[in-house]
């Protein structure tokens, strides 16, 4: 009975969860860095993004555009390093809740799915934490 339960629930895979958490952080952090870096580095791209936000009815787009871009850049670095992961996960989740509410919902379920994944993974990292292979884990251990 116990071996049947182990076969169904595959509990022996559990030790791999820290490696997969690292993979989740690298995927989310890497993707956000890839997406936000051009807007953070080029003034023309940032102005383009502000115009995009203005078109979708965001308040004060010239303030919101750099705020969103720099929040994503900082969150991406935090997730990759596993430093302040809980805060970074919350920031990512909040940013993409706003993205769905203001923009992605107009593209239907398929168009909103990447943002929905970023919300779910941001909240997961905020709640479960970054795993063993992270600066947060090292800091917690040393304290």
């Amino acid at each position, binding site marked *: *009975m*116990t071996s049947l*339960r182990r076969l*169904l*629930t*595959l*509990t022996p*895979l*559990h*030790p*791999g*969860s820290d*490696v*997969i*958490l690292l*993979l*989740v952080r690298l*995927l989310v952090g890497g*993707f956000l860095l*890839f*997406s936000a870096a051009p807007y953070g580095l080029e003034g023309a791209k940032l102005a383009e993004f502000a115009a995009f936000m203005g078109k979708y009815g965001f308040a004060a787009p010239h303030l919101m555009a750099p705020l969103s871009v720099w929040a994503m850049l900082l969150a991406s670095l935090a997730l990759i390093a596993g*430093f*302040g*992961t*809980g*805060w970074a996960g919350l920031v990512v989740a909040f940013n993409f809740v706003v993205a769905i509410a203001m923009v992605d919902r107009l593209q239907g*379920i*398929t168009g909103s*799915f*990447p943002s*929905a*994944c970023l*919300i*779910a*993974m941001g*909240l*997961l990292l*905020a*709640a*479960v*934490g970054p795993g063993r292979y992270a600066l*947060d884990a090292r*800091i*917690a251990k040393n*304290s």
Partner: protein
Amino acid sequence: MRLVETLTLPVLSRGSDAAMLLMRLVVGGFLIFGVWDNIASAERMTEFEGFLSKFGFPSPEFMAPLSVWAQFACGVAFITGFATRWAGLICAFNFVVAIAMVDHHQGIRGAFPSACLVVIGLYLATYGPGRLAFDAWLARRSA
């Protein structure tokens, strides 16, 4: 000590089961939504066979229903939290194949949703579905 807790937000770990449930519902719901038209309409299944054939899959008439029903079963398993780890492995395998055969042609942005499904599948396979799941209920009953 307080500074470390402010940085790492351990208080959020109380929400980890709710975050796992949310992630399972988002991914499971999307998987079912993504294949439902292929299940409901023979015409759409034939269309999907043609799509697989175009991208060089062997035996598309066999692979199309296999992939569609595997995704549907994964969606149901994620939502209910039953045999979640097996479903996570199948989901991850399915979308590794999707990236290797199709999505890599669309670049990083195009491959991101499938990459999310790979890492979320692997995370559910290793960590399990959390407490708010049928697997956890079965484990408690047989403990």
